[in-house]
C-alpha cells in the first residue's frame, strides 16, 4: 500500500494535493447516498417537508423546513431545522436540531436539540432524511410526554390554550430569505 501511494501520488510533501485529488472519491459512497436522497426528496411530493444542502461545497450540512400538520396545535407553523451528517452516514444517525425555537415537550427550547429515539439508539441505516422529517412532523403533533426535554411543555400539553400561548411566545416565523 505504501509503495502504491508513492508510485501514483505526487511526493509526500504535497499532502494537500492528495486531498484534492481524492476528495471526490473519498466519502464517495456517502455523497452518493446523500445525492440519491436529495433526488428522492425533490421528486417526491411530501407535503410540509423540505430539505436542501446548505452549501454546494459541503453535502454533509443540510437545512430543512417542517410545517406543522393540519389539525395539530402546530398547524401552519413552519420550523427551520439543520441536519448534519456524520462521515459514516447512514450507519450513524445525522445530528438534527431546530433552528426556529420550538416549544415542544421533546425539543430543547434554546439549543434546539430533539429527543427522538430514531435519532439516537433506534437509528437504522435504512432511514433517510425523508423518514426523519416525516417522523419529526408527526412528533410535533404526538409528543412523547414520558421523557420530556422541556418539562414545562410536557406539563401543559393537555391545556391547548395555555400551550398555544407559550408556543407563540417563542415562535419566530421564517423570513422570506430563509433567515430567522
Amino acid at each position, binding site marked *: 500500500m505504501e509503495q502504491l501511494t508513492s508510485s501514483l501520488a505526487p511526493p509526500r510533501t504535497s499532502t494537500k494535493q492528495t486531498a484534492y485529488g481524492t476528495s471526490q472519491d473519498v466519502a464517495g459512497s456517502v455523497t*452518493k447516498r446523500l445525492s440519491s436522497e436529495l*433526488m428522492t426528496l425533490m421528486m417526491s411530493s411530501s*407535503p410540509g417537508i423540505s430539505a436542501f444542502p*446548505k452549501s454546494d461545497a459541503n453535502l454533509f450540512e443540510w437545512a430543512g423546513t417542517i*410545517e406543522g400538520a393540519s389539525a395539530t396545535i402546530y398547524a401552519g407553523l413552519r420550523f427551520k431545522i439543520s441536519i448534519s451528517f456524520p*462521515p459514516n452516514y447512514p450507519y450513524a444517525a445525522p445530528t438534527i436540531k431546530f433552528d426556529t425555537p420550538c416549544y415542544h415537550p421533546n425539543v430543547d427550547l434554546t439549543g434546539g436539540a430533539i429527543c427522538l429515539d430514531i435519532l439516537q439508539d433506534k437509528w*437504522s441505516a435504512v432511514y433517510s432524511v425523508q423518514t426523519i422529517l416525516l417522523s419529526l412532523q408527526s412528533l410535533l403533533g404526538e409528543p412523547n410526554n414520558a421523557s420530556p426535554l422541556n418539562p414545562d411543555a410536557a406539563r401543559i400539553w393537555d391545556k391547548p390554550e395555555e400551550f398555544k400561548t407559550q408556543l407563540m411566545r417563542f415562535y419566530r416565523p421564517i423570513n422570506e430569505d430563509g433567515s430567522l
Partner: protein
Amino acid sequence: MSKRNRLQSLLDSSIADPSDFPQRELGHLDSSLTCKICREFYRGPVSLSCGHCFCSLCIRNSMTSKQECPVCRKCANEGQIRPVAALEEIVESWKAARALVLTLATANGESSRLTPEESISAIAGPSTPNKRRKLVSEDGLIDCPICHTFVPFDAINMHIDSGCKSTSTPSKPKQKAEWSKVFSKRSKDSAQESDPDRRLPKLNYHTMKEKQIRELLSQAELSTAGDKNALTARHQQWTILYNSNQDRSASQRQDLERIRKELKKWEAEGKARKVDIDDTDEYQRLHKQDFIELIERARRSRFHSHKPQSSRGREGGSPIEEPEVSEVTDPIEVD
C-alpha cells in the same frame, strides 16, 4: 475540489433513479432491486435469516455498529449472511436491460402506442447512441448481455456459461483445455487462495498482540502503519471488504488490488471531509447562480416527466432560500 462544483457533477452523472420511469410499476421494479442502505443496485446481495436483503458490504458495515436487521430490527449476525445468487443475476440482467426498457417505456409513455414493427425498430433502430447496436450484426457477432463484448452468435451460450471469459471463437485445443479445467480440480487455477470462496474469520482483536495483527496485515499486503487501534480498524475493514467481495459471484468479483484500493479510500474517508475553501460566504455567493440553475433544472425535468403527481406541498421558493443562510455554522475543516 475542482472548479466544477460537486452538486452539478452529481446531477450530471445521471444517477439511476426509479423516478426515471414514467410508469409507476417500472419504477417499483427498479427500486425493488436497490439496497435499502446505499440505495443503489444490489452489489453482491445477501440475505439475513429474516429474509431481508442488502449489499453484502452495506450489511457488514452496518453490523459493526448494530447486530440487527436495519429493516425489521431482528437480531442478526455475520453468520446469517448468505449470498443470494438469483438476486444477483436478476440485478445484473436488469442493469443490462434497464436502458433498453427505459427507452421503450419513455417512448410508450410519451407518444401513442407503437405498432409491433415500430417497437422492434425502437430496439434496433438508432434512437439513442446506446441502442444503436443491433442484436446480431452482419458479421454474426452478438452483443453479450452481461459483459457487452461482441461474441460470435454460435458461441454466446458458451461465453456466458464461462462467466464471460472466453471472447474468441472456441478453437479445439482451447475447448480441450476448458474441459480439462472442468474435470481437474478447480482449485488449480486460483493461485492466491486454496479455496476461492474462502471468507476471512472474525477475529477477537482484544486478545491479539499488536505484532500478530501487523503480521496479518502484511500477509494481506496492507499497510502496517499506525498503533494497535489503527491496525485493528484496518484489518476489520479489510475483512469486511474481502468477505463482501467473496459474497459476489465469481464473475462479479474484484481482484485483491482493487479491494486494497477500496480499503485505502475508506481510510482516507475517516480522516477526510476536508473542504478546501477559505471563505465560505464568498463561495456561497459565487455559486448562487449554480444553485438556482440546478433547482430550475430539477424542476423542469420533474415537470417533463409524465408521472401523474399531485402538486407539491411546498411552495416554489423554498429550496432556493436555503443556500442563502446567512450564518455559516458548519465547521469546514481547512487542512
